[in-house]
């Protein structure tokens, strides 16, 4: 038996002649490119917001302003005493896992973007910082802690990062929503193009469809023929869209890191995110297949 003959399963409907296949291939490839870009943006923002949350949510910072002596110089002994009192106070709070005084080197590093590297910090009235790590899911009463600190010293204040973090997260959530909306819009437009392209092809090839009906083809058989054809188109368009989008994502990623912005550091894509992006051709295959199947089935139902 001739294997090539048996394996030959040519599409019974001559869509190559009506150009709908070319049209929908190009359109789907463009939409898939946009889809991958938007998906990457969405996942990057998500990762960035999660990183902010993870880095900051489990800790608070307590600032203690140095005490100055009569000569307007920093009184190291009194400042240290005060720092120890605050440290002990914080350690006693339930929900606190550990309290650590940030040493000068760390503070120096934190301050360097503003004051440079060659400044002696000990001579400056820079607040001493306590890094307070919280136990998982700990819920602290910040008002009570603030009151306790005030009773202890007027020079201590608490910064739980929540206020500015919430603003950042709100901003990230808006960006995520916009990215998701665009993503869904791209999918919807793409589905519409597949839907109408399949219906147009059906109308153009009405003669072939009628022949198939006459020889006993059920609507499901014809719809499956289209679904198979559109699955192929969807897959290859997905691959092309992906191949065009990946270099753009890598380029933008590299540019983002090279700007050195700390805020963008967490915006990298994880392995699972890349895995999801790589699945785009399969997603494209599936929705092209399903959309064309139902488009054809619905159109055929209206025929005699």
């Amino acid at each position, binding site marked *: 038996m001739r294997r090539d003959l048996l394996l030959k399963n040519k599409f019974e409907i001559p869509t190559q002649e009506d150009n709908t296949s070319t049209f929908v291939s190009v359109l789907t490839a463009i939409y898939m490119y946009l889809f991958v870009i938007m998906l990457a943006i969405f996942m990057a923002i998500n990762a960035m917001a999660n990183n902010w949350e993870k880095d900051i949510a489990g800790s608070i910072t307590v600032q203690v302003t140095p005490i100055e002596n009569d000569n307007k110089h920093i009184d190291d002994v009194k400042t240290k005493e005060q720092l120890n009192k605050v440290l002990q106070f914080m350690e006693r709070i339930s929900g606190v896992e550990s309290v650590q005084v940030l040493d000068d080197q760390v503070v120096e590093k934190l301050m360097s973007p503003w004051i440079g590297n060659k400044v002696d910090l000990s001579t400056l009235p820079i607040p001493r910082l306590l890094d307070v790590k919280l136990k998982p899911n700990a819920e602290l009463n910040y008002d009570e802690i603030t009151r306790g600190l005030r009773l202890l010293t007027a020079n201590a204040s608490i910064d739980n990062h929540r206020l500015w973090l919430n603003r950042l997260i709100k901003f990230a959530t808006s960006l995520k929503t916009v990215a998701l909306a665009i993503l869904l819009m791209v999918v919807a437009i793409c589905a519409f193009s597949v839907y109408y392209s399949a219906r147009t092809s059906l109308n153009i090839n009405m*003669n072939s469809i009628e022949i198939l009906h006459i020889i*006993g083809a059920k609507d499901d058989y014809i719809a499956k023929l289209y679904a198979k054809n559109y699955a192929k188109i969807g897959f290859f368009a997905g691959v092309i869209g992906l191949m065009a989008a990946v270099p753009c994502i890598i380029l933008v990623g590299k540019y983002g890191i090279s700007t050195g912005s700390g805020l963008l550091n967490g915006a990298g894509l994880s392995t699972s995110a890349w895995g999801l992006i790589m699945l785009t051709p399969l997603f494209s295959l599936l929705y092209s297949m399903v959309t064309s199947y139902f488009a054809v089935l619905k159109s055929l139902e209206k025929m005699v």
Partner: protein
Amino acid sequence: MAETANAIQPIIDIQNVSVGYDETDVLSNIQLALNPGSFTFITGKSGAGKTTLLSMLYLIKKPSKGILRVFGQNVNFSNRDTLALMRQRIGVVFQDFRLLEHLTVYDNIALPLRVCGMNEKEIYQRVVELLHWVELHKSIYKPCSTLSGGEKQRVAIARAVINKPDILYADEPTGSVDMEIAVKLMRLFVELNKVGTTVVIATHNEQLTSSFNFQRIELKDGTANLYPALQHI
């Protein structure tokens, strides 16, 4: 009682059927019954409604009025899937062949079997066997668009009979061939009829209908009259 039980149920039963296009009936109130295994000519002048009647019989056009029963089933109340299953038991040969020109001879003939879900191995065996019968085995890989008129006709016949249909319709099958080939074709249809296929041929070729003594439906002025085969011939 015994008589009722033995009575042959018509394979095609047309009761007061009207059929046409849009709002206009081409044929009105026709009443016909064809028995299984019968051979029938549909005759009439051009525009008399032969093709319209045939398209209703091969279930692509629904009657606008009346009852049409095929294989004992009322077509008016059959859903799309049931109609498709009924069409799988019907073979049709068109005057213009209506082949899928972009496909090969093999794929065209295999189509009715693929539609039925037959496996490719069996399809191959049946198609090759039939290609020998219609003497087209050398053209198996050829696209239909490259075939001559006569070859296309043979492919069309092969496609119509590959599924061993219960009913075979042919619309002007001898319209584009000379008398000698027309007679050959007719003999082919007679052979199929002898193995039990109900054959219905629409033709305006009076020479042909008079050469073969079969019952005849004559379409005239929107009506249909059935004339039995002449017994003395």
